[in-house]
């Protein structure tokens, strides 16, 4: 096995190397999942409680108001819960990924492996939380008299994929920035919180007639996954132009994130 070590030259994704180190994805994810729920009484139940409690709060607070102002095709609790399930992939994935390189600095400084494994694994942790919560989502769905339609088999995996892609693009970008400028550690929670209100999680896009408002919501990379996911439980049609806009933004962020990360990763060990 021959290899070369040189100053960084041309850009590559390093997929071959990622495949060689595939076991590390598992170990990093597994470690984070284990550590996350160690010494907690409820353990995995936390992944389920969080979206459910948020749903209850919003239903009690705004349910009436939003349901009467906009014609929702599903009951409001289902609307909010489905939004939060996907939103949590993004919010916890982004905050984990954004801090992942700094949190693993001691490892990065001492050993080599493809650096992308670290933010990807931290997003996988959020994905596992999502799957747990999704299991609970199904009975709640039936309780409110809703069900999945035929396109769900296609729409749900697609929406998860898009949510992961959106998280991954921004997550790797922030992870790389964070190691150089620790400001992002403080920006991140605030940014995620603000973004929740620019995402159709708790209200639909058409709640306001303001064109600008609707346009900003469509630009949001999490708009597409949430819309697609809801498309699998409601019979009303999808707004394709809004979904495509969101996917485009997500793709652009994905490319920026990965390129910036790969460009700067060589110097992580010097900066961390």
């Amino acid at each position, binding site marked *: *096995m*021959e*290899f*070369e*070590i*040189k*100053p*960084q030259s041309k850009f590559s994704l390093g997929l071959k190397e990622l495949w060689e180190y595939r*076991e*590390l994805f598992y*170990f990093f994810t597994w*470690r984070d999942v*284990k*550590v996350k729920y*160690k*010494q907690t009484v409820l353990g995995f139940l936390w992944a389920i409680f969080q979206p459910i409690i948020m749903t209850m709060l919003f239903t009690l607070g705004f349910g009436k108001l939003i349901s009467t102002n906009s014609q929702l095709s599903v009951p409001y609790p289902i609307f909010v819960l489905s939004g939060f399930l996907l939103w949590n992939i993004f919010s916890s994935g982004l905050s984990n990924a954004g801090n992942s390189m700094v949190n693993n600095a*001691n*490892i*990065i*400084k*001492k*050993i*080599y*492996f493809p650096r992308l494994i670290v933010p990807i694994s931290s997003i996988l942790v959020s994905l596992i939380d999502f799957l747990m919560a999704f299991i609970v989502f199904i009975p709640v769905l039936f309780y409110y008299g809703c069900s999945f339609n035929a396109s769900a088999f296609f729409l749900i995996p697609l929406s998860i994929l898009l949510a992961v892609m959106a998280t991954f693009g921004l997550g790797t970008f922030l992870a790389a920035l964070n190691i*150089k*400028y*620790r*400001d992002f550690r403080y920006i991140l929670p605030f940014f995620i919180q603000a973004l929740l209100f620019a995402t159709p999680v708790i209200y639909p896009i058409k709640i306001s007639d303001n064109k600008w408002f609707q346009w900003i919501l469509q630009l949001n990379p999490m708009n597409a996954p949430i819309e697609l996911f809801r498309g699998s439980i409601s019979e009303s049609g999808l707004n394709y132009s809004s979904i495509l806009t969101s996917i485009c933004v997500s793709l652009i962020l994905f490319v920026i994130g990965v390129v910036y990360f790969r460009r700067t990763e*060589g*110097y992580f*060990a*010097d*900066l961390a």
Partner: protein
Amino acid sequence: MKPILEIQKISKKFRINHEQQPYLSLRDSVSNIFKSKNTKEDFWALKDVSFDLMPGDTLGIIGKNGAGKSTLLKILSKITPPTSGKIIGRGRIASLLEVGTGFHPELSGRENIFMNGSILGMRKTEILKNFDAIIDFAGVEKFIDTPLKHYSSGMQLRLAFAVAAFLENEILIIDEVLAVGDAEFQKKCMGKMDDVSKSGRTIILVSHSMNAIQSLSSKGLYLKDGTTTGLTSVQTAVQNYFFGNELENSAYQQFNPDTVNKEAVLLEGKILNSKFEISSVIETSEDFYIEINWRNITGKNVTVSFELAKHNGIQVMWVANVNHDLTGEKSKEVGNYKTTAKIPANLINAGEYYFRIVLYNGINQELYDLKYNILNISIKDSMDSRSIARGNFTATFENYVLLPALEWTNSKLDF
């Protein structure tokens, strides 16, 4: 046969920020746009380092702190890229710059073995295959399912080394990790390392222990301020480190101690020849003296001691003035003292030596002052009949530490 590692003109530049910030913030970057850039300075941690290693070579890298040893290892381990130059390698590299990389206190010993092993580049199947041997080597069977945070630090180190000991890569890079655990475990580690090097794998090793370097490696690379003259035998590299380049002979050294909050401090050290002159060259056939000047500041019992060590790292002796003053009672009064020891003629063999001087409390072993690697002297063999123990050999045998004039008897037997 092709070299397993070709290192070609590797250089590494760091930019040092004179403001000494722990890390950058965005605001600094923005405000720096408008500032002149003269607060930064380039620093070459490595400059044009080249050498080739053949399969099975064991290389010891030697140099002072800051000579670029760790940077070289980091480049070889792909942790940081070189600024210029190229390395061609032919084999799997495993680097051990720290024991227990990736250990997590919340995970159990078993889980940490898997985590650490896979970070080091082991496959799950490899870890499973060696699992029992790893636990056995570390001696932690009983606690294997206990979280690591409940392990003693010694147990953690043993577990960490045990995982690393079962790496099967062709090239192994090790940074000062042998100095872990108690004496027994160190022996075990050294033994394991010896097995590894005998198994034909290539090892690159950094250590400040010349004993470890010399016993484990065949080749040596002496780094000084990021440069090297190239690969040599390990003996030559050690000699260069101690003798030619690093230390100058000095038979007189003054220390300017900071006396704040100190009980006793060292002021001066001198080496005197048999004529009581300060001299860094001593004959094997003459008595010589070490004179230590020190100050008792607070009136505690003080014992004066020194260690004599050979330049290849072998410690010759550690002695204290206890036969003259067992607990330091006689130096209890506040004031300046002069302590002298005579080292008799015809005892220490020719070679390069240095000292370490220690002031401590003979009752509770509290350490007061300590000076390392000082008073470098050469002991010379006079190469004539004065050297009564050696006789008329025309060569010196500097590998030996002692050249004592023993009392011999010889009588012809009548049967």
